[in-house]
């Protein structure tokens, strides 16, 4: 017989993995809800998943590629920036939705108990659909530039795992913080676009090595988006070597962020209903 004990854990509760598995169907239906609802009653529907990175690519190609002459490791600028924009768009969309997810779903978790972690994790998974769709244009670009995929393309899968871990860690951390301090919600809106310039989206990571040396370059890898973006580029561009050093650092960064995010979330979880 099931035996539930309810008492004050004062934020020291452990992550109940078994319970989380019990609620996996809820996670599935929440993700399904997000995917079904997001483009309802819009004319272009899922095309929006491509439009967003495509327009950024066009603007970046003109402004940074042509006007500013930012180097791109000898790769044509459109595919150079688009390969970076795929993970970046996913990351920024997820942070925006996941960071405010507890605020937006407070009417649910103040009425029913279920593992709260499902709420910030839902956008982390549902935005993967947009991510997959945005690959379509990448294929078009690859054909246009006659970059035929090699075995390196499979690198994308572990990179997506790192990306999901980073987004999950940041998303759950920010969502917990934003529920109590609404400043975080406003902070996300302005900080996320800035974070893009910290990642090698419009410039190559090699620029950091050139200007600041190898050590700084490695440290820079701890920002998980660095290794992920450079890895994405290497995966689709035959001439670019896989930057294992950066990816390794980014894997460490992603694991740290993931663990830290879940830990903070767990610490705050018991008071969500009281501060919402």
């Amino acid at each position, binding site marked *: 017989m099931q035996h*539930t004990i*309810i008492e004050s854990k004062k934020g020291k509760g452990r992550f109940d993995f078994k319970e989380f598995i019990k609620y996996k169907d809820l996670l599935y239906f929440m993700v399904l809800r997000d995917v079904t609802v997001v483009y309802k009653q819009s004319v272009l529907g899922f095309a929006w998943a491509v439009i967003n990175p495509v327009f950024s690519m066009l603007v970046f190609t003109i402004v940074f590629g042509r006007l500013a002459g930012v180097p791109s490791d000898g790769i044509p600028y459109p595919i150079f920036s688009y390969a970076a924009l795929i993970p970046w768009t996913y990351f920024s969309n997820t942070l925006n939705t996941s960071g405010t997810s507890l605020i937006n779903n407070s009417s*649910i978790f103040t009425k029913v108990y279920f593992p709260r972690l499902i709420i910030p994790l839902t956008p982390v998974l549902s935005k993967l659909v947009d991510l997959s769709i945005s690959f379509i244009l990448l294929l078009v670009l690859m054909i246009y530039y006659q970059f035929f995929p090699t075995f390196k393309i499979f690198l994308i899968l572990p990179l997506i795992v790192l990306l999901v871990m980073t987004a999950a860690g940041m998303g759950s951390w920010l969502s917990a913080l934003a529920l109590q301090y609404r400043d975080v919600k406003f902070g996300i809106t302005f900080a996320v676009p800035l974070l893009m310039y910290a990642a090698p989206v419009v410039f190559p990571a090699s620029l950091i090595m050139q200007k600041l040396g190898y050590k700084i370059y490695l440290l820079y890898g701890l920002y998980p988006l660095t290794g992920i973006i450079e890895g994405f580029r290497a995966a689709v561009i035959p001439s670019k070597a896989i930057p294992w050093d950066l990816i390794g650092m980014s894997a460490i960064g992603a694991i740290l962020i993931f663990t830290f995010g879940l830990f903070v979330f767990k610490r705050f979880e018991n008071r969500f209903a009281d*501060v919402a």
Partner: protein
Amino acid sequence: MENIAIKVEHISKYYRIGLKETKYDTMGDAIVGWLKKPIRNFKRLKSLSSILDENDDDVFKAVNDVSFQVYKGEVLGIIGKNGAGKSTLLKLLSRITEPTKGKIEIYGRVASLLEVGTGFNPELTGRENIYLNGTILGMTKKEIDAKLEAIISFSGIEKFIETPVKRYSSGMKVRLAFSVAAHLDPEVLIIDEVLAVGDAEFQKKCLGKMQEVAGTQGRTVLFVSHDMSAVTTLCNRTILLEKGAIKNIGKTFDIITEYLQKNNTTESLLDIERIKGDQTFMVESIIVSSSENTYSSAMSGRPFYITVNLKSKLADEEISEVPIVDMRIENNVGQRLFWISNSLHANQTAANKKKIVFYFEKCQLVAGLYNITINVNYKNLTVDWLGNIADFEVVEGQYYDTGKLPPKQQGNFLLDFKVK
């Protein structure tokens, strides 16, 4: 231990309530205060979740040291005024919020219903919402698959099941939502006043379904409600909460009687300015009650007393006859319902000439709010008059002892009748 379903031990929940903002006298103070505001805001927001010390001024004890047990198969009611801590207690039991102190143990699969239709998304179809709402309530996809047909047919909206919920009427939404809830299959069910929604017919259906859940299947149910008739029908035992603590626990009938001891009485009427009469007699108070000597609010089908206390300028021995007290009762929409007076009775030899008690064997008013207009005559002169002065409430009660009542808004009175 064997037959206990829920064990609550010394459970408390404290909240921090906002303290008054500081006021500034000078402009300088105001500017400094304004600059420091982010710091104060941060402290205030942080304090929302800080460990609470029960001696702090701004600590509100929503639930304070509550202990009780619920046995397996028992239907326990929880009643109490607004703010008595019912909802907080339910939130603690359903793990929505963590207790400040104490421990609760629940044996068996729990489901709690603090609201129906949690997480309904207007863009999704009825069917999609059944799955979403069902999993939120703790069911698995497999369980819902198995019950889907039953859920849809109980809701009675088969035709619209593929329509987005935003096109539903509010009644349809409630039907669908309750239908999902009714098909939860828990061993312990914690339920808030979710019956207060929906049309009367569907409410009856739900009440029936709940009774089925409670009675025949031997489920343990914890039921919070304002609806005394529902509590009377469903619960064997009831807890009365007051100011976050248990006032009493016992047989439902006794507890409800005690709960109704909420005084349906007006405070002193002596201070009100009079427009008529010379105040030889003044109405001091009017008490509406379901028993003669205690303050308890009226309930349909139970005894009904209206006691009028008078104050007189005259000394007791100077009062030669019983004053005539006339009363007009109106409902809250201003309909005049009836008029009574002690002059309608021949017997005017009350022992206490300053206390007139009107006794009705059974309160025949339907549940609702009423008010009294009173007129006092002494020796054929109006000595006191007060218009729409005493509000009282009649609580829903089992007039016919069948668990059934006429639909709301279908008349003001309950009458005795037989069907031949």
